């Protein structure tokens, strides 16, 4: 008879285990518990609390249904904290001092009992499970084996879901970082492009300025050289032979004077133009 019961329970456990294995979300885990847990053992309230990093998960299964809550801060019930502290299984028959939530309340004639365990899956991974049972929903020591299997399976699944979520978040962060890098790259390349444009533009400007200055200087040199070559030519001519004073006075001096004056004008123009060009080019 007992073997028969065990066999049926194992079949139920197998269905539960398969169903849990397929769960991809916390909601699916809750749904699987709502469907399957009642075939494994009796309870008023089944509660499991799991923590990884800053994520606190609490699964509560009652006759009314199954709810899983996720919180970002420690949210254990006081008896769960006691279990975590001592790490030994507990069996409470006096529930008055435990400050249990509303949905744990049972009529006195039900003789409610609370069972609690910290199930250790490995050194760093554990889960707090508890069962509220009573006269009409009897939980016995024989049920503990299945409860432990359920707890181990649940811990493994919650661990997996947490890892998936962390992976997802990391991927999102990576993607975000990648997006930021791409954006920055675009900004940088547009800056570089702009700089290159500026450099090309400035180089053109400088080349144009240089060409202009060169042109001006060549033009100036020619304008200055013309009257200067007249002065030099007249002086050369004077040196060629003796000239009568009257001829020098009449023919040479006025021409020398005109040429010297033209040279003066040309130089003044050069200075004026160069100054104007410099001012214009600097602007």
């Amino acid at each position, binding site marked *: 008879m007992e073997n028969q019961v065990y066999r049926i329970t194992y079949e139920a456990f197998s269905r539960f285990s398969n169903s849990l294995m397929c769960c991809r979300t916390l909601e699916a885990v809750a749904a699987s518990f709502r469907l399957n847990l009642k075939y494994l053992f009796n309870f008023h309230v089944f509660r499991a609390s799991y923590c990884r990093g800053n994520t606190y998960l609490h699964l509560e299964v009652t006759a009314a249904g199954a709810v899983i809550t996720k919180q970002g801060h420690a949210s254990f019930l006081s008896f769960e904290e006691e279990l975590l502290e001592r790490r030994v299984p507990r069996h409470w028959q006096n529930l008055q001092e435990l400050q249990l939530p509303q949905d744990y309340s049972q009529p006195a004639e039900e003789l409610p009992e609370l069972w609690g365990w910290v199930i250790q899956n490995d050194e760093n991974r554990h889960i707090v499970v508890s069962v509220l049972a009573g006269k009409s929903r009897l939980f016995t020591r024989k049920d503990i084996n299945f409860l432990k299997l359920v707890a181990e399976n649940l811990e493994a699944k919650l661990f997996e879901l947490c890892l998936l979520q962390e992976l997802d978040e990391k991927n999102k962060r990576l993607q975000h970082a990648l997006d930021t890098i791409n954006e920055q790259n675009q900004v940088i390349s547009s800056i570089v492009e702009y700089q290159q444009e500026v450099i090309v533009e400035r180089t053109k400007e400088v080349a144009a300025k240089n060409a202009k200055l060169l042109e001006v200087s060549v033009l100036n040199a020619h304008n200055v050289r013309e009257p200067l070559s007249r002065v030099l030519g*007249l002086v050369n001519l004077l040196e060629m032979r003796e000239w009568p004073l009257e001829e020098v006075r009449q023919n040479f001096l006025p021409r020398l004077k005109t040429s010297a004056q033209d040279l003066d004008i040309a130089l003044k123009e050069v200075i004026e133009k160069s100054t104007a060009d410099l001012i214009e080019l600097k602007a």
Partner: protein
Amino acid sequence: MKRIVLVDDMEIFNFIMVNSIKSVNPAYCVHDFTSPVQAFSAIEELDPHLVFLDLNMPEMDGWAFLEKMQARNMSQKVYILTSSTSELDIQRSKSFTNVARFLVKPVEEELLEEILQEGELV
């Protein structure tokens, strides 16, 4: 005797050249023009042995003068006489077969003597 034509819009240069040439040899026959247009029409009549030609002139510059000579197959020997020292001008002058030399003002006496004696023996 050698016939020489001077073309320069600046009278002072013509004054210098006429007197310089006369200093070298007073027997030379020198015709000077400040108008290149008048000078050009005179050349056909005078058929000078050599022409001293300025480049930078209003009305008709030295290049236009040379091109016009080229167009009419006039082969009188031309000495360019300019205050420009531009390498571009020197290069351009080489494209005219009748240009004998490119001279920069002022021309020293020795160089002028040499030029005037060039071809004297021919």
